[in-house]
């Protein structure tokens, strides 16, 4: 039996969770004070997810970088891979907020999209 400790981030309270696992299965969750906390603890123990935000190069843009983010959360374990993919991308302005920059990044089913409009350098 394994015990994992987390600080819940479902709301600002930050309850200290203890999740007991038998192999890949969650046996018990302790320390939460609401449903959301229980869900978070379970997810975090089995397959932690994160939202990711970064920037991509846009050489002809008003600014040289375009902020982007994952429209949905991705597995925490694969953040580095996603960042590498993002680092390799170059886009061309003009861009509109929520334009898809990388669809279904590394097969996660999550798109990387633009966080803002980016006009071209005039």
């Amino acid at each position, binding site marked *: 039996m394994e015990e994992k400790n987390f600080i819940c981030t479902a709301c600002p309270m930050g309850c200290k969770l203890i999740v007991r696992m038998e192999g890949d299965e969650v046996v018990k969750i302790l320390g939460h004070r609401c449903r959301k906390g229980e869900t978070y603890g379970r997810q975090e123990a089995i397959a932690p997810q994160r939202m990711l935000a970064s*920037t991509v*190069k846009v050489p002809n843009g008003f600014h040289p*970088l375009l902020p982007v983010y994952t429209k949905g959360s991705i597995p*925490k*374990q694969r*953040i*580095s891979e996603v*960042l*590498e993919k993002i*680092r390799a991308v170059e886009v061309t302005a003009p861009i509109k907020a929520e334009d898809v920059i990388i669809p279904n990044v590394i097969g996660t089913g999550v798109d990387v999209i633009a966080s803002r409009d980016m006009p071209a350098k005039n």
Partner: protein
Amino acid sequence: MQEKYDYIVIGGGVVGAMIARWLSRYEGKLLLIEKEADIGMGCSSANTAIVHAGYDPLPGSLKALMNVRANPMWDQLAGELNFPFERRGDYVVAIGEEELPLIHKLMDQGIKNGVPGMMMLDAGEMRSRERDINPETSGALWATTGGICDPFQVTVAAAENAVINGATVLLNTKFEDFIWEGSRVIGVKTNRGDFFARWVINSAGIYSDAVMHKAGVRPEFIIKPRKGEYFIFDRAEVQIHNVLFPVPSSRGKGILVTGTLHENTIVGPNGNVIDDKEDTSMTKEGMDELLDGAKKLIPSLNLRHSIANFVGLRPMGNGPCYTPGINYNNDYVIEVPSSVQGFVNLGGIESPGLTSAPAIAEMVVDLMKDAGEEFVAKKDWDPIRPGRPRFAHMTHQERKLLCDMDPRYGRVICRCENVTEGEIVAEIHSPVPALTYDAIKRRTWLGTGRCQGGFDMTRVVAILARELGVSPFEISKRGESSEYLFRTTKDLEVSDVN
């Protein structure tokens, strides 16, 4: 950049700049070399900014002579060179009855030195002059000829006037050795090549001993750095207008509390002698000393309101005083040594060095004349160094006219001190150009306010890169090895998840 000159001045501090200004009046090619990335980066920009009345130096010393001779020159100088200067008068404040005889002694000394316009104030009078003064004040010496300036502006203005009159200023150029023809100095070797001249003037400040030793002059003369630490206060919280000295001690004039021409109040300096000529670090002990010193004069002063600190190393030398009957070994060295031709030697120009600078420059020219140099005055010599507009100090109408003239003055870059892009660009392209962030800061006072560069820093770096035509990675705070930016954001690989 030619190699042959008539005069080379080593050192771009206030003394070197002033000497260059005086020499630029005469025919002859003049070069000033400065090892740092900007003029005046030594104690010329890290001092109390006082133009001393002259009661403090020992009567009979060269310090006293230079101080009292120079003091009246400042009004005309400020007018010609367009730098900020005000005669606010000095107060030397006695705390407690036991300090009264000391300020009387100081006044006597002032009279001996020929200082005009001094007066004794009683305790009540002193309290009425400075509301927050230590209530235990027993009186003060008030020297009305004392003044304050912006010492960096003085240095830059003097150097610019020299350039306007044909001089060359080379920054990042460090003296290494002399070039000889027998016992005559005919030039200098630097990190940027050899330069030849008929006269070389040593005004290398804290390193003037090393320079003169290379000429074989005064091997016993040693400069020891005297560290002066300072605090600057938020002008919104602390507003001391007067120049307040404590009673002096053997360690120097003491820790002042004084207003400045930027309307900040500063406290300092202390005066600890150190060994390392490059040690401009602020110390914890120094901060405590400053607080004690400040509280002696203004007990209500709170360190909480300080927004910056700075440190200056004063070049304390062991030059003997040659006046018969005076036993003093911290005097200025200003001479044309008999053992070497073509060389003017200065050393130990600590306080009242800033004050004395114009008189020192005049004396250098006189010494060179005495040594046979035949100066020919330039017919087209221009004594004026024009001032540049300061948006922050202008009225609404003046600002409107300035913006109409050049739209770049409409773009405010430092919001706290109201410094515009037009002013920054003007400083980058001025006769002694500003090449680093700190150089612009010293010239415009940008980045010294509430946010301490928070808003302007990224913008100034971009403007410098653009105006100098270099990559932003070359832009530095104070010269080589102090660059801001390391690389672009997308260069390196990401580290793994833990």
